[in-house]
């Protein structure tokens, strides 16, 4: 299956553009819009995210404050925009970290097999055995929190699943005779991994990566909610939801707005993942 899947090239991709799945178009558009607004947040935001309007505390959404204000009179909409930067940067960084570690491990385990495989996979199994939150909390609780450290903690958590996916696709590819042909030429390890294997694993990794971004964004929010992630007064969605808890009866928009933003982001990225799966997998996409 993997080999057939891998037979898709950029040319196929272009040829298929007319028939892209709706999920990819919708999800992709939303994700693109999110990235653009996050990048331009400083200029789009109507107010500085930490500016307190003492007279306008607990304002429901209106023309001045599109998403209302919080208990300090800060504009929730501005905070949402700035917060999107944190969420997306966290999701992307964490995923990049886990890919940077997990993909080489998976490739080597699948290529070498035997003792190397056994050693790598058993260590990763140990990592999988930790409850995810516990592992991250362990890292964050003993040292002062920072965004990069949160990203690393979440990234480390996803190393094992990424490595497992990479390994299983690699194992599948290893039965391909082009690998044996390369061995018959006496190719070096780096050529085998980077030129023969990686380009063929890539489509599957793209799908996996989009799912990992979703997990990272969610987990980041959970950590902030619990107070281990980004610290106030930073505008993080998880933190905002956490802060708004006390006022859910009287000013639900404080928690609701970041909650909705979170949902949209997560759903959009998932849609992209589903769409990619459909485009890249001949079994689902129908060649």
């Amino acid at each position, binding site marked *: 299956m993997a080999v057939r899947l891998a037979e898709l*090239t950029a*040319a196929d991709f272009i040829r298929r553009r007319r*028939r892209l799945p709706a999920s990819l178009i919708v999800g992709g558009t939303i994700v693109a819009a999110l990235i653009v607004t996050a990048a331009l947040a400083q200029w789009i935001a109507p107010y500085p995210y930490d500016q307190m309007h003492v007279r306008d505390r607990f304002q429901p959404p209106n023309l001045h404050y599109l998403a209302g204000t919080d208990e300090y009179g800060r504009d929730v909409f501005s905070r949402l925009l700035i917060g999107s930067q944190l969420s997306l940067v966290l999701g992307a960084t964490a995923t990049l970290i886990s890919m940077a570690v997990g993909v080489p491990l998976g490739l080597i385990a699948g290529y070498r097999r035997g003792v190397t495989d056994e050693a790598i996979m058993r260590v990763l199994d140990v990592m999988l055995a930790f409850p995810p939150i516990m592992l991250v909390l362990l890292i964050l609780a003993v040292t002062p929190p920072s965004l990069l450290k949160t990203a690393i903690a979440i990234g480390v958590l996803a190393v094992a699943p990424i490595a497992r996916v990479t390994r299983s696709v690699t194992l599948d590819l290893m039965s391909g005779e082009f690998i044996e042909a390369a061995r018959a*030429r*006496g190719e070096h390890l780096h050529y085998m991994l980077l030129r023969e294997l990686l380009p*063929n694993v890539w489509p599957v990794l793209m799908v996996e990566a989009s799912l990992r971004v979703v997990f990272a964004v969610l987990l980041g929010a959970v950590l902030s909610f619990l107070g281990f992630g980004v610290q106030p007064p930073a505008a993080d969605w998880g933190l905002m939801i956490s802060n708004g808890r006390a006022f859910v009866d009287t000013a639900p928009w404080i928690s609701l707005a970041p909650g909705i933003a979170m949902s949209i982001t997560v759903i959009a990225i998932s849609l992209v993942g589903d769409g990619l799966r459909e485009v890249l997998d001949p079994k689902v996409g*129908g060649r």
Partner: protein
Amino acid sequence: MSALASPSAEPLLEIRNLTIRYRENDRQVTAARDISFALRRGGSLAIVGESGSGKSSVAGAILDFLGPTAEVTGSMLFEGQDIAGLAPAQRRQMLGRRIGAVFQDPFTSLNPALRVGRQIAEPMVQHLGLPLAEALSRAEAALQEMGIDRAAEVARAFPHQLSGGMKQRALIAAALACEPPLLILDEPTTALDVTVEAQILRLLSRLRRDKGITLLFISHNLGVVRRLCDDVAVMYASQLVELGDVHRVLELPAHPYSKGLLASRPPLAAASRNNRLAAIDGQMPTTAEPDAGCVFAPRCPFHEPRCSAGPQPLTIAPDGHQVRCWKADELGPWPRQQVAAAVQPAFRRGDALVNATQLSKTFGTRGGLTSWRLSVAGGRPQLHRPPKRAPAVNDVSFSISPGEVLGLVGESGCGKSTLGRLLLQLLRQSGGSVEFDGADLARLPAQALSPFRKQAQIVFQNVGSSLNPRLSVGEALERPLALFGLTKPRDRTQRVAALLDMVRLPVAYRARYPHQLSGGERQRVAIARALATEPRFIVCDEPVSALDVSVQATIVNLLADLRDAFGLSYLFISHDLAVVAQLSDRIAVMYRGRICEIGTAADVLAPPHHPYTEILLASAAEDEPAAESAVGIAGAAHGGCVFATRCPHKLGKICDTTPPPLRTLTTSHTIACHLDVLPHDVGAPPIPVRPDPLRAAI
């Protein structure tokens, strides 16, 4: 007697103007165009064609297996009723009850989680409403009828315990469980070894004779068809091009395509070096439109402008023979290819290029820690090593001279591919040694292996995975040049063009990706990639097994041309003795990890034979092979001759207990057997290997 022109009886199955189209995204592909034929009760019709000709779609349409993207028009009258118009539920009721089906791959057709007997009983419970217990006992009887020993034991077994041939027997039993009058077989023997294929064909013809079952047989193999069917329909590019009595079509083919198909089959005889197979150039069009003229015209050597004027009608002769060619009556035989007489090189045993000595390979069990077993015996826990497997290659010695081709023949699983990989050091041997050009490869340090890798290359069987799907043809061919520093970067483009030219591909193909190539073209690229390093020795591991007959002929010819042009040595591995004979100077026959006979091609193909070679030859020559011991669940490994359990000439206990001695018949011909008098030497009922009668006639 023909099943086609039989006005007296109403045909069991009559197909009229069957057209099958698939909607594939936004384009339409026609799989079958205006197909009509009739099959009388008790008759047998074969539909023959290469992959993509639409033959399986016709079977699929009758069985309603084509899925929602297929659009089927025309009528299919079965027992006088048009089954195309039936409701899905009625149609399902008919399948299994009135029409049985057996497919190509016995290895995936059985449910691995259910006992074999249960799977044969299931249709009887479903369609005949029998109680399970009775159905199970009938299933056992059915297995016995299929020629299976210890049927009760086999019925209780799970599919993984059975060999491929036994599975196919069980599947035939399941298809016939409800005693349907029509049995549709889609390439039922393609996945099986020749000896097993011969057994299955014998079984099918016996069932036909005893039970009067009507057969619709789909195959790409003309030889198989001759042994089983009365009539044959030849399909090409979704059209029926010829239909008639099997002997008439196979001995006096009228349509150029039928002629070409028959001519491109390799004969079962040693070939001289200037011998080439007849081949059909070009490839089958995938979207042929009939308005463009004869679909075969672009590949036809008899082609003239008039052929392309319009679609060819199917003309019906008075005797019922149908041909889709306007000038069928005036055609001569298919043209043969000639090459200038090559010098038959004389090989001296002394200066071997490749020398294998007592080579053995035993695979360990995979899975590392998980394959160890823990037991608690007598209160003390014990850790058990994974059990040793039987050796895949066992004490094999031979040599290959520079410029010589050694053919290696054997059934699947006999260790022939493992042997090829040992020679290239893609696998490390468990014992013995491989010398290349006088150097013991196992003793070479890793970095000294590189010059060897340059000189010894490999071509694979699986055209689907032998090229990296992400590399263009140009990139794939440039890589060896860069790796071994053979060509300066600026000359590489030129060298790639030269390589493509060597394998007769247009230079423009450098920009293509593997999925844009046909199977034959991929194999050419794979050969070019092996040639890129300017090797002296190439292991060809079943290079033509996955290809259609006509493509197979062109690749065999190409390999022969390259052998002569560059003085290459090959280890040519194949399960097909005829293909091996076509290319090889010497032939080694392998069975269960051991070489049982080795000699010049002429020696091996002529008596006296090793008993196993004898069976292989008889199966390949489409004769009735010598009786083998009845099929049962394979026995355990033993210390004697590996072939003893199947040997028709078994002497007795000595065969089971003592390894056979090597008998050197001539300086170049060795047989490992206990028999003093080998089959056909004297005595022993002879099984003559006749020249292929089909070949003589074309």
